[in-house]
């Protein structure tokens, strides 16, 4: 059930992309985020697909894993697809029925918008969550934003909070699964009935899940205390971040990939 979702899960394949400095990955992730939002044409989308496919191969991530990571956002992507079809009025009319008009341009736009979201998720997964452990992500964020400390922003604490939140995703998913099974065996039904009733049904999962989360938080805080956690001051690192030549090279290559997408968007017509 829920265990199959790989959103936010780290999968170690030992690839070059896994070893890449997480700071490079985060910066590149932001670059790709911006670039993907600029994509509005089919040819750029094709270019993006090609670039992402190359990245996936480099990361040694199987298509199946990618599929499971986009699975949860498919309904949303579909919703965006439909919404764009209906919202777009101009162009060649393909279908007209009651108040609904479907145009060719609308169809294309919907597809681009939907696919763009899916690409966004895939590139998040490949560049970040699937290939970078939460602790590395938070290390990188801490290092990238350490200048904010000047303005009294608790950078270390925020990074630690984030890494713990990510670390607990699999634990909470497992727990959700257990609670759902327990409630189902008491007669709960999460698959049928009206949407309102289904949402209401989830209260039987959410409340125990919240209670469990508080318990986790409380116990983890004590355990961290016991292991002498006292904030970022004076903390050393087992695997300190160090930019190597290969990291610079990878950064340039990833930038080139982003440039290819932009070129496809603005130069090819």
């Amino acid at each position, binding site marked *: 059930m829920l265990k199959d979702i790989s959103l936010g899960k780290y999968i170690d394949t030992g690839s070059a992309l896994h070893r890449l400095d997480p700071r490079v990955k985060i910066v590149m992730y932001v670059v790709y985020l911006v670039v993907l939002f600029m994509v509005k044409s089919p040819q750029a989308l094709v270019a993006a697909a090609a670039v992402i496919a190359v990245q996936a191969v480099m990361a040694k991530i199987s298509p199946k894993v990618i599929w499971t990571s986009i699975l949860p956002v498919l309904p949303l992507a579909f919703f965006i697809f439909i919404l764009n079809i209906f919202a777009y009025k101009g162009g060649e009319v393909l279908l007209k029925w009651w108040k609904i008009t479907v145009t060719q341009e609308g169809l294309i736009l919907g597809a681009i918008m939907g696919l763009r979201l899916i690409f966004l998720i895939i590139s998040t997964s490949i560049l970040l969550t699937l290939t970078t452990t*939460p602790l590395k992500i938070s290390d990188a964020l801490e290092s990238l934003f350490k200048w904010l400390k000047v303005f009294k922003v608790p950078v270390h604490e925020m990074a630690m909070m984030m890494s713990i939140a990510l670390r607990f995703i699999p634990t909470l998913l497992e727990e959700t699964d257990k609670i759902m099974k327990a409630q189902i065996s008491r007669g709960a039904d999460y698959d049928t009935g009206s949407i309102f009733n289904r949402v209401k049904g989830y209260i039987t999962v959410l409340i125990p899940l919240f209670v469990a989360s508080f318990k986790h938080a409380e116990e983890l805080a004590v*355990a*961290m205390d016991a292991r002498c956690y006292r904030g970022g001051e004076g903390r050393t690192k*087992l695997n*300190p971040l160090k930019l190597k030549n290969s990291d610079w090279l990878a950064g340039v290559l990833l930038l080139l990939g982003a440039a290819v997408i932009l070129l496809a968007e603005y130069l090819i017509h």
Partner: protein
Amino acid sequence: MQEEKNTKIIEIKAQHVSYSYKNDYEDAEDKSVPAVKDISLQIEAGSYVAILGPNGSGKSTFAKLIDILEQADSGELSVFGLNTKDEESFWDIRENCAYIFQNPDNQIVGTIVEEDVAFGPENIGVKLPELRERVDKALEYVGLKDMAKRQAAQLSGGQKQKLAIAGALAMRPKLLIMDESTAMLDPQSRDEFLSIVERMQKEQGLTLVTITHDMTEASSCEKIFVVEKGQITTEGKPEEIFLNPEKVRRAGLELPEHIALITELAKLQRVKLSKDDLVSKASCIAKAAEIACMDLQASAGELRTAEDKEIDSEDIILSVKDLSYSYEAGAPKILDGINLDVRRGEILAVAGRSGCGKTTLISHLNGLISPTEGKIEIYPEDGITLSSEVKKDKGLFRKYVGLVFQYPEYQLFEETVYKDIEYGLKKNNTPEDKRKELIIKAARSVGLDEEKLSSNPFELSGGQKRRAAIAGVIAMTPKILVLDEPASGLDPRGRREMFSLIKNLKEQGTTIILVSHNMDEVARYADRVCYMEGGKLIKTGAPQEVFAENNSIPKPLLYDCAVEVHKAIEERLHTSISFGPVGRNAEEEAKNILASVLRAKEAASNA
């Protein structure tokens, strides 16, 4: 073997230490009740001590005071000769004191195994070549070296606790506190865990303080402190504590199996035990054999054990046929060709190590998952057959089979206990006028006071929460009740009460399927056992049959002791004696031993 201790450094010294939780919540029940009351004790450096006591007695709270996770309200507490109140000593104490908790998931900070081991040393600023060395050595010590780069979430429960030891070890502590660290482990994992920490004590002179409900674990300590209601009521060597069974029981504890056996033997033979007899398992066995070989003091009538009522083996209520299960086609089988008949009215135990497929098997029994191959049939009433292959029967499976998962208290969600128990009844459309009666009856059968029905489930104690959750399943009056490790995490008294509750349900006619990894409890309470390993059913039968055979199935500790006593007797009498059946408890086992000695002596005098 005993090493002379030439230095007796006091590691922990408490004088009149008290502590009470400061609660901000006005309606909290235990607002002003002190958790620790006037505790005074001394623990020597390099010793291995146990703190025992019922849940909620304040043992964990006291342990937290040692690590200054809480600050004592009054009294003097010094650790490593440093005062816990001194701000300057704060980090000196905490850096040298490691703490392992009960739930492995709530103490792992790092995603990757080695990242987590490094967490502690990183916090205290250990620099790089040394940091790497500490992490690698700690992982090697606990046997997780090959998993250094693995994700912590993928480890088994036993491995996660070993990871916690590695995290503690990397701190190079002088003192290790274990707060029910073995409570969630199966017996094999527990033994592995204990052998690692005991090795640390011997090789590195580590002081071990363990809080446990496991009496066998406590019996191997050098000293025991019994804490009740925040106070130390008894302290002494294990043999001194366990010499007085009445007192042990009154404190909500019980005897370790090997001591229980010799105590029963001594009772039947009218012998008074001395504390020297109880010093070790070996001494217990030697003395037990000696007592058993004395002239029989007990009357023949006393040796009779209660006959079990044989359950009619023809009357099957549930049948598992050639069941196999895997997550997806081609994936390894979680369950592999299971065939099992459950008899009406029995307690059937499904036993095996963590991860052997027990929980997957029981999830099939009320249709939570569907078999990949094979089927399940239930025969709830005369003339009715429900099959997992028939789609419309699935809903009825849930009507007849109630399933209580491990830690069921985590499923509570309603505002009142009453409403929570009512949930299932609402879902199966029980008419409103009938519900109240069923709810009260269910609450009564789990021993929950009627006044508790109107309280918020989250205000109840741990044991009561579990009862409330079980009541929620019982209220639906299932014909078959499946319980997954119903006693895990409970203290000895809680365990006893849980099992007497289960026996009552059986007497009311409910068929019970009990999932457990504790073989002693299986032998004590189950009519039949099926033992699973790697998704396969290895053996099914009465506990006497399943455990008596010479096979790989782990034996109840009690039975293990009885076998050793038998061997010791054979050596004494220079003859082979016939083995008695596996007894359900220490008393039965003692009677069986005496009966077989009697038979051997009669045979010798006839010859």
